[in-house]
């Protein structure tokens, strides 16, 4: 017998997973900036976090300058900023509160303790020397939640919606992490520039990809190799490619095991995204612009989320353009290839 799952619950699960994943990645982004806050490029660096989240306006309302202190408060403890970690975890907790009938008690308790810890953060913990351990703690709390979920959450369709959210968000966040350093690549591609290489390594570390990357590339630590690794590597758990593959497999599982009829358009879109990520070379991406490519993926993921809403969460049908429509596509004018032909026929 298949237990029915309320559409509202499916959506809450999707967002619960996303918010936890988002909090973890925001901690990662802050951590990588904290590590390089003392560089000569450090000061301008902090503002990229604001840009990354399109928070320029909201930030300007509260702070004149993007100092390390201001940005850290804005993204860590500011309860008025909807994108701060404390609010992200609050939203996760709100969803979990709604999902209490479904999620395990351990999941709920851990999230509850985590949130209570965040609202109790002391000013002194935000100073250099204390901030890194705090960010690690936040990252670990998110990972703990993920682990508890892995070990306690009942594997019916609810689990698949949770996975959909987790991997869509993780794919999105990896593109943001990458985007936070793209200008280094665009403005200064001198391989011998050790400061920039150092920043890219920090980026890799923030994504927990340093060791895996080293296994693949003993030498030749070029920024574009790192970008390629984060985008396309089929085995790295935070690469965009792997995340999209997981989204695809979760959706396939949902449809085949639980007789859900909706979501065919999502499956179609995922196939196309997978094929792009699986066949594109980093050189092609750089030629069209890394930022533009990242932007394309982010908009693609938003379109997928909208369509999931219409297919499973009881939202009205999506009016957004079909997959093949131009504005979803990156400017690949310089590299026409076979993949694109397939899309326009679909």
């Amino acid at each position, binding site marked *: 017998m298949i237990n*029915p*799952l*309320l559409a*509202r619950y499916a959506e809450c699960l999707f967002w619960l997973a996303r918010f936890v994943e988002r909090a973890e990645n925001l901690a990662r982004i802050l951590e990588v900036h904290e590590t390089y806050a003392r560089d000569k490029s450090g000061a301008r660096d902090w503002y990229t976090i604001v840009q990354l989240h399109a928070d320029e306006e909201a930030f300007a309302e509260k702070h004149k300058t993007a100092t390390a202190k201001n940005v850290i408060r804005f993204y860590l403890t500011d309860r008025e900023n909807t994108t701060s970690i404390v609010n992200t975890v609050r939203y996760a907790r709100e969803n979990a509160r709604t999902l209490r009938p479904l999620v395990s008690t351990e999941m709920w308790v851990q999230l509850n*303790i985590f949130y209570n810890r965040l609202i109790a953060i002391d000013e002194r913990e935000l100073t250099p020397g204390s901030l890194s351990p705090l960010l690690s703690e936040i990252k670990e709390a998110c990972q703990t939640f993920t682990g508890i979920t892995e070990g306690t959450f009942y594997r019916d*369709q609810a689990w698949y919606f949770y996975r959909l959210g987790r991997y869509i968000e993780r794919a999105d966040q990896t593109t943001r992490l990458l985007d936070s350093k793209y200008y280094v690549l665009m403005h200064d591609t001198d391989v011998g520039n050790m400061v920039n290489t150092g920043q890219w390594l920090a980026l890799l570390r923030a994504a927990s990809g340093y060791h895996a990357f080293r296994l693949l590339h003993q030498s030749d630590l070029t920024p574009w190799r790192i970008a390629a690794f984060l985008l396309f590597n089929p085995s790295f758990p935070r690469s965009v490619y792997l995340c999209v593959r997981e989204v695809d497999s979760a959706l396939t599982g949902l449809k085949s095991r*639980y007789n859900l*009829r909706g979501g065919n358009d999502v499956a179609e879109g995922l196939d196309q995204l997978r094929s792009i990520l699986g066949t594109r070379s980093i050189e092609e991406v750089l030629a069209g612009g890394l930022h533009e490519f990242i932007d394309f993926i982010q908009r693609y993921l938003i379109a997928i989320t909208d369509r999931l809403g219409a297919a499973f969460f009881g939202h009205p049908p999506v009016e957004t353009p079909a997959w093949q429509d131009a504005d979803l596509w990156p400017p690949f004018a310089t590299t026409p290839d076979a993949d694109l032909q397939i899309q326009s026929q679909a």
Partner: protein
Amino acid sequence: MGDFVLDHYDPGEFYCEMLGCPATAEIRDRLGRMPIGEFKRRAAGVEQALYNLGITFTVYSDSQAIDRILPFDAIPRVLPSYEWDRIERGVKQRVTAINLLLDDLYHDQKILKDRVVPTDLILGNANWRPQMRGVKIPHKAYVNICGTDIIRDEKGEFRVLEDNARTPSGVSYVIENRHMMLRSFPDMVDEIGLRSVEDYGMHLVGAMREIAPENTTGGKLEPEIVLLSPGTYNSAYFEHVFLAREMGVPLVEGRDLVVEDDRVWMRTTGGLARVNVIYRRINDDFLDPEAFRPDSMLGVPGLMRAYFAGNVALANAIGTGVADDKAVYAYMPRIIRYYLGEDPVIENVQTNICREESALRYTLDHLHELVVKPVGEAGGYGITIGPRANRAELEECRVKLLADPSNYISQPCISLSVSPTLIDGVVEPRHVDLRPFAITGKDTWVLPGGLTRVALRRGSLVVNSSQGGGSKDTWVFD
């Protein structure tokens, strides 16, 4: 400072649940051997665990604190089985009488024709639902979940204070409190013959199956049961979650349900799925904006159509509020005799119905020694406790009484029994009551024990959680 839990405990002139009964000797011994420091340490551990669980109680008037812990006191309230047996019989008798009353009121109205209960008291009651006239209810079980508030007076006599036949809450605390005790005080519980409270969810879901409308499950073996909650901001949301989990059924809100062809469906990931039984934790008047309050955002438009068409069961049934009205309460001993030909196993508290002239006069003459209650309010709001009220408060009460006498009853001020309670590290007597929970489908089953509420403020008689009350684990032991 005493070295052990009960060393300096003195209940004074009140009946004490712990000391008043010889059968509790073993439990007293164990508490007597427990160093107070050790007890406090474990109690603090329980508090932390509750905090981590986010076990909260929302109080509407306190906008600052959406989440608040319902205080838990770790010293149990104890009931030997011979005392419990009487309570159990009393509760079953009461629930049986209430269901017979409702069936009669919504069908033949014999009790009105026989003038046992005044007709206008029923038909003029705010909770009377004329739509229910002639509606058939499976097993005539109108009140599937009933909470009967019972107190003990200074002589140690049990008395029924109130019936809760609409959507009584608090059972989740009974079971969570027990879990806390088992975890933190296993040595207190060991081998005293404690009766389990684990199977409440099973009995509840069993009763829901028994009231499912026939032939509505569409060939499925089991009816689809859901729990309908007002949502996460409701004061009892935690309990709704708890019950849905214990029953293993979906917890839904009004917006998850839709009525089509006079049938109820829920919106799922795979489309609409049929619903056969709804344990609703929403009051009658908010259930269906088509039938009752049109401004209700919590309900399901058309639900009453499906209900009256016999396509969905609701627990409790519509219109049970007329039976737990504080004015109807006064007639309960007579109602029990009328339907069952028995004396009440547990007596009422003596009650003056202010709509009757002599009772009003008596109440006005004895205001300073009576408790005056509005009949329509729940949760301890609007009560005047004569002996505790000052001159101005008594005058205010007199004005209200004269303006609308039929809205009030009065009762003598009873010194509720006390139970030892840990207050700021010291064990002191605090007043308690008891709310056993009865589940009725084909038959009635009573959860052993029930919710013991404790008035944490010194001298306070108001145990409601909205008014500074806490709770204790209730131990029924053999």
